[in-house]
């Protein structure tokens, strides 16, 4: 009997929850704010769905209702991707160790 591909995706999902659980517990509390901004950025990988949606359908009519929602989602996700990664970078750059020469 063949296994439904849904079951494979469900397995990926469940295993990722476990990975997430252990990885996030190992995040140092002082970096919890960058953790939130970087999770923001990576969850915007939803943009791949938006791109497919925006380019779907007849190439002659690129602004069908379904495409427009795709384009809107691209803008939103792009704000998040650039904003999320850059602000995380900015924050992480500020975390410095004690200088020894002082």
């Amino acid at each position, binding site marked *: 009997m063949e296994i439904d591909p849904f079951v494979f995706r469900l397995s990926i999902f469940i295993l990722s929850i476990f990975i997430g659980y252990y990885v*996030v517990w190992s995040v140092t509390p*002082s970096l919890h704010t*960058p953790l939130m901004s*970087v999770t923001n950025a990576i969850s915007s990988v939803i943009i791949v769905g*938006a791109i497919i949606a925006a380019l779907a359908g007849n190439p002659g009519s690129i602004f069908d209702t379904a495409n427009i929602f795709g384009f809107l989602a691209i803008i939103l996700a792009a704000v998040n991707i650039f904003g999320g990664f850059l602000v995380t970078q900015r924050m992480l750059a500020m975390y410095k160790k004690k200088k020894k020469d002082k």
Partner: protein
Amino acid sequence: MSSNLLAIFYLISGILFILALRGLSSPETSRKGNLFGIIGMVIAIGVTFLSVGNFSTGFLYVLIFLLIGGSIGAFIAYKIPMTAMPELVAGFHSLVGLAAVFVAISAFLNPEVFNLGSPGNIKIASLIEMSLGAAIGALTFTGSIIAFLKLRGIMSGSPITFVGQHYLNLALGLTLIGLIFYLCKTQVDTWFWIIILISFLVGVLLIIPIGGADMPVVISMLNSYSGWAAAGIGFTLENSALIITGALVGSSGAILSYIMCKGMNRSFFNVILGGFGGTDQSFSEKGKEQKPVKNGNADDAAFLMKNASSVIIVPGYGMAVAQAQHALREMVDALKKNGVKVTYAIHPVAGRMPGHMNVLLAEANVPYDEVFELEEINNDFANCDVAYVIGANDVTNPVAKSDPQSPIYGMPILDVEKSKSVLFVKRSLSPGYAGIDNDLFYRDNTLMLFADAKKMTEDIIKSL
């Protein structure tokens, strides 16, 4: 590009995202982690472009919109002051939520592209996945907007409650489940729109009863929701990068919510059901009769700290409001020149989001190895000469250990009262967020410094 190869590339970006989070286990590795995250994103977007293949005019528009969004995001990221980070994160959550809703809508309107069937005849499993994704996305969107407005101060931080609120939420939640069921049965698109509308409403109703200082829980919770929404869409689109990321973000937010609740010794439901602060009036009145406090000025504080051998700084939300972190760092530098050992103690729920204080101190160039979490530093208060409490209140209240009647009883607190003397910078004697009087104000070893946190700290620098 074959779909198998595509799936492998998505898996690689999923792994890179895991490494991005893994990097955050220490500040040294975190920057590399962020880079992994960026590479993962570039791969995911790049292979999606290649898979679509037809570089038509539509493709050009995709690039244009990507650049528009990207420049807005980059602009915000560079301009935003560090004190506004909680609002920014709430705002970003709302965008993830809305993007999930939009992708779900286009998948619903044009299911052929995603191999989900045809309009009016979408696969049941896909329909459930996309309506769940859309519903969670929608409530993340409006919930985050409310959180944003509260954090920004546009909306009052005090809880908004009304009779039957929880029953209404429960009824709406059950309605949503019923509607999803009905949608699968009938495939009528009206139900899909109603699901989204009700979810928008639920998002608002869920967040309005939660007060300002519970925001760390709210933000973490919305973080978690945005992850589950992404995962729901990931199932619909059969995209492993999205499923992995959704699961990571979902569990990350859930863990943060748990840590924040534990920091307040409250159950998750207690926070979600809201209404803290308004109900405890009778309790706070009890201790209100005028008890004597010792009132000091900047010179007293400077004298005490200069002659101390060790000082522990306890920052709280008040420091963020007064933007006193830079002045604080200067004060500490001056103290260090006098040979005083200075460390910082951070309570898990200090500020308005997880890690809020740490970011502000990092911004003011405080080395992160001088900053300690509650468990690491709590025993040191007994050996320290001066505790400088700047903008914190409830998290230092010894009543949490002594009075079982108190609403904050059992909450882990910083043992500030054990230090030889306590300097408490505060604008007035008013109680903190929980609405209870802080016993610490009236202790013999406490010196109250009534002033704005930044101004007082600057005055102390002058007297040093």
